[in-house]
Every structure is written in structure tokens, then in C-alpha cells.
């Protein structure tokens, strides 16, 4: 575990530099603290999602910064500069497509991560705060998806934003103000693009870094939950440290996700529609697939009319959010085994099935519109 060079050999330059820093900041202890975190019940493939999300975020930051080398957030050049990245700059199509599919991977992994925490009962005491900060991170990820979608300034971007902001507008009392704040005016235009850009590349990343740090800190305070089955003695026997086994699994997970995103970027590279204009033409506005279920449920009869719209667009999603926030405080039973928590299991299955139904029906509906 220690880095002491074996007897008889001269320390290498790397070791000398390491020792120099270590003497001043206690690098070895810090590294040991980071790596020697007990994982109750041993490392598992199921635990890789948090690390994978961190990896995806770092890659989104890297590709996002690279895209900003060419992209300009102005209504007259955003589209042209994005097309330039896609068609003229070497590997621009790849980096943009990676960024696009990376965002999808992020949403998928956030769902997996949250589902896992829910099913493992890992939001329960003493981990309520991790869950709450996690929900905030989830909101930030959705915010990234929503704001990033506008930036290419094509028809898809323009209309998804138009509809999204209209939904926000239905919030009682402050809706109109919020929508204008986000749009920078009454209708989407240059001000909207500037605001979305700054939110996407400055505000959200800063918030995500801060809260992901807090999330990790809280996680380290409480420690990993471990499996929901097994006595403490059984768990102790299987316990190992974060390094090497869990890190190894995490890194393999990252590599797999990386390969998947690359493959998607190759097979389904981003193609822009026409440049944004307030005339949709033949285009049927639709949000990104992970917002489709929200989009589709607004087509239901029960959510028609002004009040129905409020119910569907604001009340229902807010209620869902509030329930998730309240979850660790409502569900105070210490039982973590999902097979002994029938209500939780039923709710999760119902939620997932309804997302699936709404998403699929939104896709089927496309054919009726053409």
C-alpha cells in the first residue's frame, strides 16, 4: 500500500517529485483515504453508475469546450457555425455527435442510478441528503438537455424550446415572468439563444460541479449502503476497498459507455434540420426522446383546457418531484430489501411502464402526423 521504494534502489525522478509533493500536502494519506473506502459486501457491477456519470460529465465538458472553439451563440451564425463543425472541421461531426449521444447516455445512466438507489432503498436514513442532492443533480441534467437542445438553432431546436418555455409559462403567478426571464423577451430570439448558451456552458456546469462535489462528500460521510441482504458479519467477510476491485469495474463500465457513445456517434451522427424560423413548415415539433413521455401525456384528453393544461404541465410533474423529495421522509421503514417493500416496487414498475407507454405512443403518433 505504501509507495516506499524497495531497498537498494535509488528513487526515480517520479518518486522524488511525488515525495516532494507528499511531504507538503500529504498526498499518500489523501490517496489512501480516497482509495481505501470500505465497500460493504464487496465491489459490484451494480455500483458503477455513479462513476460512469462522473465520466460522462467530464467527457461532455471536454467535447463541449471543443465545440465552443467554433460555435458562436448568435442567431445569425449559430446554425452556420454548427453546420461548419459538422461538415467542414475535421472530426467536428464526431465531437458534436459524441456530445449529443453523451447527453443521451447521461440521461439513461441517471435513470439507472436513481432506479438503483430507489430499489436498493439507499435513500433511507442516514442517506437522505445524498438523495436530495441527487434529485437536484437530476434536475440539472435535464436542464442541460433542455438548454443544449436550442444551441444548433435549427427547426428542431427552435420548436422544442418554444414548447418547453410555453409549458413553463403555465406555472401559476410566476409563469409569465419565468418564461420571459428565460426567453429574454416575449418570443424566442437572439436573447433566448444567449441566455440558453450561458446557462448551458456556465451556470449549469458550475452548479453541477458544486453539487456533484457535495453529493460525493455526503456519500463519503454516510458510506456506501451495501447490499440489502446479508448479516453484518456476512457483509464484513465480503467487504473490500474501493481500490482495486470497484475502481476496476468502474473503469470497465466507463470504457463500455465510451465505446457505446462512439458507436452511436458513428452510426447515427447528428444531422441538423433547416435553420430555425418561426414558420415550422412541414416539421412536426418534438422534444428530445427523454422528454417525449412528458410531451405525450399533454396530448391526453384530461389535460386539455386551461386548467387541464395546468394539471398536466405543472401540477402533475411538480407533484412527482415533490414526492421524490419527500420519499426518504415518508418511507421511514429501515427495511431496504426491495422484495419486502411491495409498495415501492409497484410504484417503480408503474412509473417505468408508464414512461415506456407514453414514449412508445409518442413514437407511434409520429406516423399519424405524417
Amino acid at each position, binding site marked *: *500500500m505504501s509507495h516506499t521504494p524497495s531497498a537498494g534502489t535509488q528513487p526515480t525522478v517520479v518518486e522524488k517529485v511525488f515525495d516532494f509533493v507528499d511531504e507538503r500536502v500529504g498526498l499518500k*494519506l489523501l490517496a*489512501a*483515504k*480516497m482509495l*481505501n*473506502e*470500505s465497500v460493504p459486501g*464487496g465491489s459490484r457491477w451494480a455500483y458503477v453508475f455513479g462513476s460512469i456519470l462522473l465520466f460522462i460529465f467530464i467527457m461532455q465538458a471536454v467535447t463541449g469546450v*471543443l465545440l465552443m*472553439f*467554433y460555435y458562436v451563440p448568435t442567431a445569425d*451564425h449559430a446554425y*452556420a*457555425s454548427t*453546420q*461548419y463543425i459538422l461538415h*467542414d*472541421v*475535421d*472530426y*467536428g461531426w*464526431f*465531437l458534436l455527435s459524441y456530445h449529443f449521444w453523451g447527453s443521451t447516455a447521461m440521461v439513461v445512466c441517471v435513470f439507472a442510478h436513481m432506479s438503483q438507489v430507489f430499489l436498493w432503498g439507499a435513500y433511507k436514513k442516514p442517506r437522505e441528503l445524498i438523495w436530495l442532492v441527487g434529485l437536484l443533480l437530476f434536475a440539472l441534467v435535464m436542464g442541460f438537455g433542455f438548454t443544449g437542445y436550442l444551441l444548433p438553432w435549427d427547426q428542431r431546436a427552435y420548436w422544442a424550446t418554444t414548447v418547453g418555455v410555453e409549458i413553463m409559462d403555465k406555472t401559476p403567478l410566476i409563469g409569465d415572468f419565468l418564461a420571459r426571464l428565460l426567453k429574454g423577451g416575449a418570443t424566442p430570439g437572439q436573447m433566448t439563444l444567449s441566455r440558453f448558451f450561458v446557462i448551458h456552458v456556465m451556470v449549469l456546469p458550475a452548479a453541477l460541479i458544486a453539487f456533484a462535489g457535495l453529493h460525493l462528500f455526503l456519500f*463519503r*460521510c*454516510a*458510506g456506501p449502503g451495501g447490499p440489502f441482504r446479508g448479516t*453484518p*458479519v456476512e457483509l*464484513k*467477510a*465480503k*467487504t*473490500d*476497498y474501493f*481500490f*482495486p*476491485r470497484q*475502481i*476496476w469495474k468502474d*473503469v*470497465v463500465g*466507463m*470504457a463500455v459507455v*465510451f465505446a457505446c457513445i*462512439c458507436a452511436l456517434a458513428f452510426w447515427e451522427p447528428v444531422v441538423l434540420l433547416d435553420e430555425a424560423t418561426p414558420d415550422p413548415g412541414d416539421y412536426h415539433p418534438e422534444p428530445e426522446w427523454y422528454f417525449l413521455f412528458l410531451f405525450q401525456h399533454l396530448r391526453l384528453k384530461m389535460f386539455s383546457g386551461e386548467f387541464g393544461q395546468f394539471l398536466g404541465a405543472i401540477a402533475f410533474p411538480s407533484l412527482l418531484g415533490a414526492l421524490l423529495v419527500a420519499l426518504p421522509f415518508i418511507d421511514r421503514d429501515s427495511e431496504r430489501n426491495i422484495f419486502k417493500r411491495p409498495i415501492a416496487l409497484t410504484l417503480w414498475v408503474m412509473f417505468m411502464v408508464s414512461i415506456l407507454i407514453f414514449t412508445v405512443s409518442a413514437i407511434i403518433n409520429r406516423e399519424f402526423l405524417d
Partner: protein
Amino acid sequence: MQPQLKSKVRCTDREVGEVTKVIMDPLSFEVSHLVVSMNGAGERQVSMGSVQTVADDLVQLRSSSSEIMALPPFKRDDYVTLHEIEVPGLEKHVHVTPGEVLVPLPELERNVKRRKFFANLTYVMGLFIGLPLVYPVLKYLMKPMYAPFDNGWLKIGNVGKVKAEDTGTQFKFIHKVKEAYLPEAEIEKNVWVVKATPAVLEKVYQGKDLEFRDATGKTIWTNKKDMPYIAFSGKCPHLGCGYKWRKHKVLGPVFLCPCHVSIYDASGRVLEGPAPRPLDALPIQVSASGEVQIIDMEFKAGTKVQSRMV
């Protein structure tokens, strides 16, 4: 109370040594063992079950000294210090001062031979992700770095503007540039034109025609050595500032760069200052009616040898 470090340890028959380390159980957060230095006869790990009483500086055991001596020697490698691991909440339960508080390594972490192997595999996976990106990212960033040269002729004005021989006259002109996704932009630039006397002309051309070649080595244009009009790029060859035609108190009329005070004569030769080479003459042609055309070129500043950038 928890046994304190350096406390004396007494068996039923005699004192055997002192407490050197304390071992905590990461599950119960209780002290599970003491490590006792046997007065120079190695260390023994004694279970708390054998402890009868604990006082400020004395631990009384239930066993005899021979029973303690018969215990196997303490294996330090099976433990880590509390500083090296993260067991949430454990530190709050430690009331042992000062010194080494140990926690047993999990069974799975003992004698792990493959630690190094795993670390290396992790680096390999990192390379698997990082390396494929190096070339594409470099190519991506390099796209605008080596644009092809524009060798088109640009009209810059009429020689009628030049009033005297061996005198610098500034000609402003518009260079149209299409950059990346932007629409064509008009950039205002300038060159200095000198109508040279044969003596000055000789200093510029040194009796030879001046050939301009493109990247492949093909000749684009030749400035004839006896054509009296010379156009100098408006960029100072020192560090790229814009220079002016000025009257110098000692040297008379000269080209003078305000940035680092490089001074050139009408033939572009360096008279004074840090410039490493003379002013850069550009391809020039003058029509019968006196219309001047040039090829706009820019050369790398600060080098002795001319190397074209634009």
C-alpha cells in the same frame, strides 16, 4: 473507558509490557484488540476478552504472562491505520490518545498480489479512452491553422499618389476574406509604396529579379529588378506592428516602427533597432495608366529568413 496507549499491561503474575497500538472493529466501533510490546520480545495481539480492568495507565489482564507470550506475533501487514481508510463514523468512537489506531484489513484485501496489475489495467483502460481522441481532437483544432494562400492581385490605387522619389507613401486597400462560416468580410490593410531611384533599387534587388513562389515551389510572379516601384508589406518584420514614414532627427526620412523603434531606410534595409531582416517587398505591377496591383502577402515576424504566413 478505552485502553490508553503506553499504558502498562499487567498479567496475573507480572507486568509484561505496554500498549503500543489499539485495534478497532469497523462494525461495532469498539476496541477489539490491544497490541502489547512484550518488553522487547516482539508484539502480541491481545483480545479485549482477556482484559479484566482498564485504568488510566494500567491494563489488567486475566491471563498469565506465559499465556500471552504463547500468542502468535502481531502481524502488522494485516492492518491499516485509521488515517488511511474511510469508515464513516468510526473516528467519533476513538478515545485513544495519542498514536496508532488500527483497523483490520478486510479478508479480501489481504495479500492482494494484483494491486499493481489492477492499477496498470486501469491506466490501460484510460489510454483506451484517451488515445483514440488525441488525433481527431488535434485535427479538429488544426482546421483553420493552415489556410491556403490567396495569390489574387488586388488594386490598391494609382502611382500618381507618389509625390517624390525614395519616399514612403501609404496605400490603403481592402482585402476580402471569407472566414469559416462567416460571410465574406472586408478587411482594411495597407502597404508602403516607394518610387526608387536606381541606387535604392539596387539595394532592394541586388541586381537580381525577385521571384515569388507558392507552397509547391511554382513561380507566381517575378518583380523585375529595373521596375522602379516597390511595395512593402505594412507589417514590421520585427514583431508585426504597423510602421510609418517619419523624419528622423539624425537619420533623415525613414520607415520607423513605433513599437520597438526598428528603423529602415527607403530600400527597407534595417538602419537601427531590433528588426532581424529588411522590410518585405511584395509582388507589384503597375499598368500603363499607373494603376498599382499587389499580391497581399504576410510573412512571419521576428525571423531572419522570410517565411510566408498569408
